[in-house]
């Protein structure tokens, strides 16, 4: 296992955001943590990457980790060129600077864009830069927090293909934090379903999303718009 999270708990002044959560990511594997807002999925991701400290529980990481965020408009330095951004990471991690061009190729960015500033790039191109920057450090685990949620459908498809390719090329493992079940089906092997800070169901994607056992997972799967879908009003939970 590249990552093992055991009995994680996180309290924010009086609120339990994460409550006894355990999961693991295989070497080169791809695990999704799904749930709705307030489920605690992002808090888990932030604890794994060290942005947040757990109240209790353990995180065992065998290798380096990098993170890609939802909003590429906020995660890049607006005064730094694409090449500058990648060079900095490569230098910091004592990697070969000549890899910049290779990284641009890996994420499908025209090498000519190396001199561009973030404001000259589209949202999809910025997210490619963010992914290239994360991969520059040659991490063993990439945490992607809603990394394709803000993108247009046609761009999201390009980025998803890129993520599949990058994993095949580098053997990096993914921890995918998302609310989008179709993305989970496409890029992940295993899934953890969270609700109100707890894991309600976990297992292989095909089993959990194909034949969900927990009531909440069933509701989540049933509420995704799809061909022939008729939305129904659930018993009011308010």
């Amino acid at each position, binding site marked *: 296992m590249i990552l093992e999270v055991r009995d994680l708990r996180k309290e924010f002044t009086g609120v339990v955001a994460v409550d006894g959560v355990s999961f693991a990511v295989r070497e080169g594997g791809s695990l999704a943590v799904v749930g*709705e*807002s307030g489920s605690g999925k992002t808090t888990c991701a932030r604890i794994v990457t060290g942005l947040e400290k757990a109240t209790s529980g353990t995180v065992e990481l065998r290798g380096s980790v990098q993170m890609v965020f939802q909003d590429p408009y906020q995660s890049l330095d607006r005064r730094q060129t694409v090449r500058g951004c990648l060079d900095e990471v490569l230098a910091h991690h004592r990697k070969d600077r000549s890899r910049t061009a290779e990284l641009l190729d890996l994420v499908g960015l025209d090498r000519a864009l190396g001199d561009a500033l973030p404001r000259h790039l*589209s*949202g*999809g*191109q910025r997210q490619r830069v963010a992914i290239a920057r994360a991969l520059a450090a040659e991490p063993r685990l990439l945490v992607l927090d809603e990394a394709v949620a803000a993108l*247009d*459908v*046609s*761009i*999201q*498809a*390009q980025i*998803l*293909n890129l993520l*599949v390719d990058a994993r095949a090329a580098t053997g990096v493992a993914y921890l995918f934090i998302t*609310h*989008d079940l*179709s*993305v989970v*089906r*496409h*890029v992940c092997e295993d899934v953890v379903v969270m609700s109100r800070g707890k894991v309600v169901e976990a297992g292989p*994607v*095909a089993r959990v999303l194909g034949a969900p056992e927990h009531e909440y997972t069933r*509701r*989540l799967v*049933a*509420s*995704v*718009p*799809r*061909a022939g*879908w*008729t*939305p*129904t*009003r*659930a018993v*009011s939970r*308010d």
Partner: protein
Amino acid sequence: MLQFDDLRLRVGGTPILRGVTLEVAAGEAVGLVGESGSGKSMTVKSVVRLLPPGSRTEGAVRFDGVDVSSLDAAGLRRMRSRDVAMVFQDPRAVVNPVRTIGDFLTEVLRDQGVGRTEATRRAARALSEVGIGDAVRRLHQRPYELSGGLLQRVVIAAALLTGPRLILADEPTTALDVTTQEEVVAILNEQRAARQVALMFITHDLELAAAVCDRIAVMYAGEIVEVLPAAALHAGARHPYTRALLNSRPGAVAPGERLRTVPGVPQSALTAPPGCVFADRCPHAEARCREVRPVFDGSAACHLLEAR
């Protein structure tokens, strides 16, 4: 009831809409689907003339046969407060944060001369119709005390209160969780059917549009490239862009298979080629596609379809 007749829009000289033609019948729900910059929001905002400063329009938008650009201030106010209601993505941007839900709901009714007791009674009924229990307590609450999904239902209740004939909904569920989205959409469908209200529903989610609407209009770079019945979304899509949108969703292929993507990025009316707006990205484009603008044949605008 609503008619867009070759609507063109420029904002400060920049083209936004390149000629939108579309009709919405009384009681009909039409979905506007497309990626960012396609002009969906501007099309809908032009109905109530909520356009940015420096906007210049050509062509016409007619509501009940009346060109909305000919309305005076009183006529426009009347249309906005009685005939047409709007629901936006972020309910918190719409509801006054320091006033109560009751104030928000009764404001327009009071403005129209309805008495306080009657207005409150109607507001409470409107809340229960959109599935909000304990209406009396809710009327005394303030927006910060309600979740996003609950507040969006309050906005829908407000939209229905004045008995409009058209609702303009711009990504009304995009900020909500999927389970909440299902509830809000179910309520919208229910109330719309019961009241025979027409709807223009903007979304980037084709399946959601199909579940809510009778017809779907697909927009790209300031134009409508295809209009099709919602039931025919999968089998009947003809335009290469509609097909590309359908094919690029992760559910379109078996897990592990490559998504069939279109190269490039979504364009706006400014950056799109002078001929067919989709020609730069279309896998089937020919020379004439870039130069000659295809004619909308009632269902799609595409040279390659004309040939067949």
